[in-house]
């Protein structure tokens, strides 16, 4: 199944600090619940693991994460993630485009568009829950990411 999610959130930190965090997979992925980066396999190319649970159905993906576009001038990234369930229960693909825009008060506004394709058990049994779970995951990500930014700001 395919789903498109559009999300925006704001943080008080400036765009440069946010950008620095966003292009570092170890920093940003650390904030996504269930995601871990195992190794870098090429330029802007990483391997990791993604675990998700949609109600009764869970999946653990071996994931391939790729910064397809890193546009420092416009503070825009395009990130793709492909994962195959380690038990052969399906796969998932995501393309995320994210922009950071400077706010008048000095903070940043982040706009993300995610196109997700999911096949297999999750699509079959969890489709009703995907939007709800995604919203929940995004909330957790925003909370983690904001904390990380605040900590970095304090340390600096």
């Amino acid at each position: 199944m395919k789903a498109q999610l559009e999300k925006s959130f704001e943080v008080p930190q400036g765009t440069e600090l946010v950008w620095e965090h966003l292009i570092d997979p170890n920093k940003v992925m650390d904030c996504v619940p269930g995601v871990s980066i195992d190794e870098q396999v090429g330029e802007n190319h990483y391997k990791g693991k993604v675990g998700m649970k949609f109600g009764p159905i869970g999946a653990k993906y071996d994931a391939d994460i790729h910064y397809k576009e890193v546009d420092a001038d416009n503070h825009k990234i395009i990130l793709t993630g492909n994962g195959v369930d380690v038990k052969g229960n399906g796969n998932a693909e995501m393309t995320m485009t994210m922009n950071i825009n400077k706010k008048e008060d000095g903070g940043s506004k982040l706009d993300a568009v995610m196109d997700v394709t999911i096949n297999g058990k999750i699509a079959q049994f969890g489709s009703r829950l995907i939007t709800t779970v995604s919203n929940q995951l995004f909330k957790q990500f925003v909370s983690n990411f904001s904390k990380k930014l605040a900590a970095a700001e304090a340390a600096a």
Partner: protein
Amino acid sequence: MFNCKTSAEVGGMGHSVKRKEDARFLHGKGNYVDDVKLPGMLHMVMVRSPYAYAKIKNINKEKALAIDGVLAVITGEDLAQYNLHWMPTLLSDTQMVLPTDTVMHQAQEVCAVIATDRYVAVDGAEAVEVDYEPMDPIVDPFKALDEGAPLLRPDKENQKDNHIYHWERGDREKTDKVIADADVVVTERIHLPRIHVASIETCGCVASYDKDTEKLLVYLTTQAPHAIRTVVALVAGHVGLSEEKIRIISPDIGGGFGGKVPVYPAYVVAIAATFLIGKPVKWIEDRSENLVNGFARDYHMDCTLAADKNGKIQAFKVKTLADHGYTDSSANPSKFPTGMFSICTGSYDYEHAFAELDAVYTNKAPGGVAYRCSFRVTEAVHAIERMVDKLAHKLGKDPAMLRLQNFIKKDQFPYSSPLGWSYDSGDYEATLKKAMEMIGYDDYKKEQAEKRKEGKLMGIGISTFTEVVGAGPSKDFDILGIAMFDSAEIRVHPTGKALARFGTKSQGQGHETTYAQILAEELGIPYSDIEIEEGDTDTAPYGLGTYASRSTPTAGAAAAVAARKLRDKGKKIAAYLLEVSEEDLEWEVGKYFVKGAPEKSKTIQEVVFAAYTNIPPGMEPGFEATHYYDPPNLTFPNGAYICVVEVEKETGAIDVKRFVAIDDCGNIINPMIVEGQVHGGLTQGIAPAMYEAIEYDDEGNVLNGTLMDYLVPTAVESPHWETGHTITPSPHHPLGAKGVAESPTVGAPPAIANAIIDALTPLGIEHLDIPITPAKVWEAIQAHS
């Protein structure tokens, strides 16, 4: 209404006797497949594909086999060694038992895990590692024929595209001409989506092969045990399973509705597994496996109906695209790839019709079963009944009046339909008028006019359908070459009690009662003294099973004819006992008496006793008879259904206020059972009309493969059904009876759809495909306001 020839105690035709089979079900003593437990029994669980279309690069069994209690993982490669990895379908296509290289639909069987315990088998299935290479599936059947669409079945010789077959009936040229010249023409593309029978009991089997006796015993959820025995012998004969060594037992069946006609791959794997291991193997499908395997309907029908300006119907044309999934495993008679779809000309008298159909492969589950209807009759009836309503709206005519104007008249039977059927009997006008009277049609029309003035949405929908059931005459109807007769074998014991066995198999229809009543009617032996058995191929006479409303038309007829053979023999015995000639005797239910001297008589029980104890010289002892009944024609049950709905404009919510169903199924054996069957069929009619559809996304994922998402109506969604009958006996059936249990499933959806669309007519809405959900109605209202 029902003229009973027998007393209530004898309980022949027309008596609403209580069912003989109830006691075991009411006390939890039914014996369904999952209740069967054999010594040393193993459990099988299938690993299924998460993808709609993928190459299988590797199957790693190791981790599964390492689990304590997992005995085997069976793959397509394993079966290929015995040439059992493919099997033939009923319609000369081929279906994978287990794949060796490619999976063709989501949830297709990939391999099987055999373990000592149900839970351990599931653990094993979880531990099997399958390496897939996903490919882009074809989900939309209209795209299956696109230039450059991937060829889904390269395994089939001469298969150049995804087209399976073309079928047509009627005169295309003349029909086109009449349509071109007609005053009024209405057209519509109508889709009847994939649905699933979702019997509350899923499918399953317990297969047990004894290596010493070389006998195979299979307890199986099947509506056609004898046919299955023959199929197993044909498919597995080369490995040494020959038909006399195969015993299929169809125990109590928790609902069939056509879903238990096919041979599912897992049955074959279980049989292969027990054959190799020598221990009983049980496989029980879980609900999501059930819902995503097998289907009914999925016809896209482009319909055209033409009439003159007065509303006289002149021609009907339908061009259909059928989505069969990756193989044509439709459960149809061999010569009828589209089943009885050519009944689509309906209950109306006109000369010209043309129907054609193209079937295509897609990456969906195969199936093509009935969902409680005779082969593809629901599709046909929906097409014509929707179109007649559309014509009425276009002409500004009352849909009831338009139907009355166009009906085949009572004196036109037997009626030759434009597409080649010979309708046996009916009185369509009387049936519709009875329905109109019972519901108060004219009052509702007035109420509707008032409500429309207030801006309220109220609809009245009619369906006046003709079914074609009871396959069938051997000259036309066969399954894998086996003629579609059915059978009855009666043994009357010395004390006058009887045991009768049949080639059919009840799945809730009440055969144990109905057949006993037929024999009670014919022999005068009380129904309570007659035991009925079905479903064991070692004991029952050969027959093609129960589906397509064929049991009463075929096996019921066989029972009557076999009983009449016994009555003839009984007459000879009675003549001997009474020392008169046969010609001097007359039969009255339960006894033979001397003409003009009724005090000189012998009861059937006395006659039967004599057949064992005081046999006339030269006569063969015993009192037994068998008959294999080859019907001269099908039976054509019909009915008039009227539905009244109200639709809430703001939300699209649909409230079914009334539903009246008048059925004409000829002579009635047990009115209580017939009424019960009609109730059930009606709920399975509202189900696809308003709730059920198997939905796929563009990637071929099934989106509603559980009963959380696939909406089987509960007692709340199911309206209070109001039923009634007209009786027009079948002229060719020995009892004048026709099939009935599927009529309501066939007739109800267009009545409901017509009612909802009628409610929406003031907004300019002309058609909605089923299931007509509140969301769909709401969207249509938004689009039209």
